[in-house]
C-alpha cells in the first residue's frame, strides 16, 4: 500500500468518526418542548384506574418489542428501550408517564416522550413526520387496547 493512500485513508477515517460523533451529539441538545409538542405527545383518558393505562401501554411496548427498563406504578411511569442494540433507526428511549388531570376525579393524562429522537437532528424534533406518525400510532394502539380491555 502506498503511503499516500494510507494517509488519505487515515484522514478519511478521522473525518468519518467526527461526522458520526456530530450526528450523535446533536441529539443530546436540549430543546424546550412547546405547547404543540406536548399536545402531540399527550392524550387524556376518562378512567379511574391508572393501572389499566399502564398495563395497556405495557402491552403496546411488548408489541413493538421494546424492553422495559424502569417502571413505577405510583406515579405511573414506564421507560423502555429497543433491545436490538446498535440500530439507531428507531426511537432509542420511550418514556410513558401517567398523571391525574387537575380538577378531574377520574381523568388521567398519558404522555409519551422519545428520549433520543428517531431523527438525526434534534432541530426537527417537532416536525419529523416519522415522529409524528409514531406518536399518533402509539395513541391509536392505546385507544384500541383500552377498547379491547373494556369489552365484556
Amino acid at each position: 500500500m502506498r503511503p499516500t493512500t494510507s494517509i488519505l485513508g487515515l484522514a478519511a477515517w478521522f473525518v468519518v468518526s467526527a461526522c458520526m460523533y456530530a450526528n450523535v451529539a446533536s441529539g443530546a441538545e436540549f430543546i424546550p418542548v412547546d405547547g404543540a409538542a406536548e399536545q402531540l405527545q399527550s392524550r387524556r383518558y376518562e378512567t379511574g384506574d391508572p393501572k389499566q393505562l399502564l398495563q395497556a401501554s405495557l402491552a403496546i411496548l411488548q408489541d413493538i418489542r421494546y424492553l422495559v427498563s424502569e417502571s413505577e406504578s405510583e406515579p405511573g411511569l414506564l421507560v423502555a428501550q429497543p433491545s436490538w442494540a446498535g440500530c439507531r433507526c428507531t426511537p432509542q428511549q420511550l418514556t410513558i408517564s401517567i398523571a391525574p388531570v387537575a380538577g378531574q376525579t377520574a381523568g388521567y393524562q398519558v404522555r409519551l416522550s422519545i428520549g433520543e429522537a428517531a431523527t438525526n437532528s434534534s432541530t426537527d424534533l417537532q416536525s419529523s413526520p416519522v415522529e409524528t406518525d409514531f406518536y399518533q400510532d402509539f395513541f391509536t394502539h392505546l385507544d384500541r387496547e383500552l377498547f379491547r380491555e373494556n369489552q365484556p
Partner: protein
Amino acid sequence: MRALLAPGLVLLTACTSQPVVTNPFAKLADVAAQRQLETTILRDMDAESACVHVTGVLMDLECSISELNSDLGLVSATSTLRVIEPVNFIAASRWRQTCLGNAITVSVKETSGDSVAVRATFDHPDPDAEQTFRTLLRRSVTRQMEEAQ
C-alpha cells in the same frame, strides 16, 4: 487519482447519508394472533404468585433481571450464559441456549375466574425460545403444586 476515490466516497457517504428511519408500528401485522401465541394462561393463580414463577423461570434460563414490578405485573430480563453451569437447574443447557442473547419482557395480568395471562415477548422472536419459556413456566407451576400436596 484512484487513491483519492475510495476515501472520498466513504467520506461523502458518511457525511451526507441519513439512516433509514422506521416506525416500529408500521411493521405490526396481526397483533391479536401474535399475542395469543405469546400468552400462557395459568389457572388458580394470582398475579403476584405468577411473577414469582416467571422470575424463577427467567433465572433458570440464566437471565439477568433488570426490572420487576409485581404490582403492575412486569418482569424484564436479558438472557446471558455463564461459562460455569450451576447444578440442579430445571432448565437444560440446550434450553438456555435457545434463549441466549434475548431481551425478554413478561407481563402478567389477572383475567376473570382466578386465572392469569402471562405474556412473554422476546426481542428476537423465536418459536423455540417461546416454547421453552412456556414449558418451563408450566413445569414450575406443576412442581409447586406437587410439592404442596
